[in-house]
């Protein structure tokens, strides 16, 4: 498991997570969803086999939790326009039909469970509110592009 000669710290695990895993994910929103998916719904604990094998459970959990919060803070700090772009990229990489994706997200609001624990409640409110608005912007753009197909195409709108 851990190399006894190597100093194992949460920072190593954090950097490892950033370089090996998160850097391969194309946008912060996708990173947020990915990190939230490593968290157990019932216990709230994070799990990651690769990191666990190299750094042990505690360092792994601290690293995943820290990365989750960092990305969440970055997304909350984004202007609405940039968040719309993030969401557009996420829709594109999901490979779902944009209409279905937007509808599902508006109905189920899965982004609610992507929020890290123990963060400021106003930030949570702002994040969820901004996602709702970003979804509405995408929906509006999509309807607009359907109504005026020559004026714009869907791809640039969804994934700038």
């Amino acid at each position, binding site marked *: 498991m851990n190399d006894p000669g190597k100093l194992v*710290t*949460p*920072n190593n695990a*954090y950097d490892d997570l950033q370089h090996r895993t998160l850097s391969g994910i194309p946008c912060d929103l996708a990173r947020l969803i990915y990190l939230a998916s490593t968290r157990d719904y019932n216990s709230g604990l994070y799990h990651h086999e690769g990191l666990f094998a190299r750094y042990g459970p505690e360092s792994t959990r*601290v*690293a995943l*939790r*820290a990365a989750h*919060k*960092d990305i969440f*803070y*970055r997304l*909350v*700090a984004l*202007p*609405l*326009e940039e968040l719309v772009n993030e969401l557009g990229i996420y829709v594109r990489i999901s490979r779902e039909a944009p209409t279905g994706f937007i509808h599902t997200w508006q109905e189920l609001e899965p982004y609610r469970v992507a929020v890290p624990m*123990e*963060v*400021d*409640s*106003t*930030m949570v*409110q*702002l994040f969820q*509110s*901004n996602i*709702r*608005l970003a979804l*509405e*912007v995408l929906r*509006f753009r999509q309807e607009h592009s359907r109504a005026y197909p020559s004026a714009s195409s869907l791809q640039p709108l969804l994934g700038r």
Partner: protein
Amino acid sequence: MMSTAIFVAFGILLILVLLMIARRKEVEEREGDRAAAPAQCERRNTLQGQELVLRIFSREDREFVLQMRSPRLQRMYKEERRKVALHWVRKTSREVRMIIRTHRLISRLSRNLDAGAEAKLLWQYLELRLICGLLVLFIETFGPHALHDLATYAGELSQLIGRTLPDSAAANRVASSENPGTP
């Protein structure tokens, strides 16, 4: 005309006070982070209190939504921001109430209370409660964006006052008793 000027001045004042509270909380959080640093590696890229306020009242976001030229989107935006702004005001008010409650409990056990400082604290608390109430009214009536320019101006003033104040340790001591378990 005169009443409008008074109203605007009052708006500036109340935002100023709220921004100062947010600033005190930042100092407290930074001190808490420093204490917890050896135990964990969590990065603190969190928005500072003032930045969060400006994010809520962002003019850039409003202009972006206006560019869409969708009345439905504009209505939704206004409603969403109103909800977040009200949440922030109520949370701030609630937190200060908790600080005062904790302080009152500590004060009961204290033998050498400074009556003057206590009276001043009580006055500030009542003032803040009133301001929060008015801020709620302001947001409900005029919407969150009427506050943007005032908030920006108040933010600048708040920083200026923060730099002018020689020491805010006493205020921080009171603030640090807010949530003993909070990192």
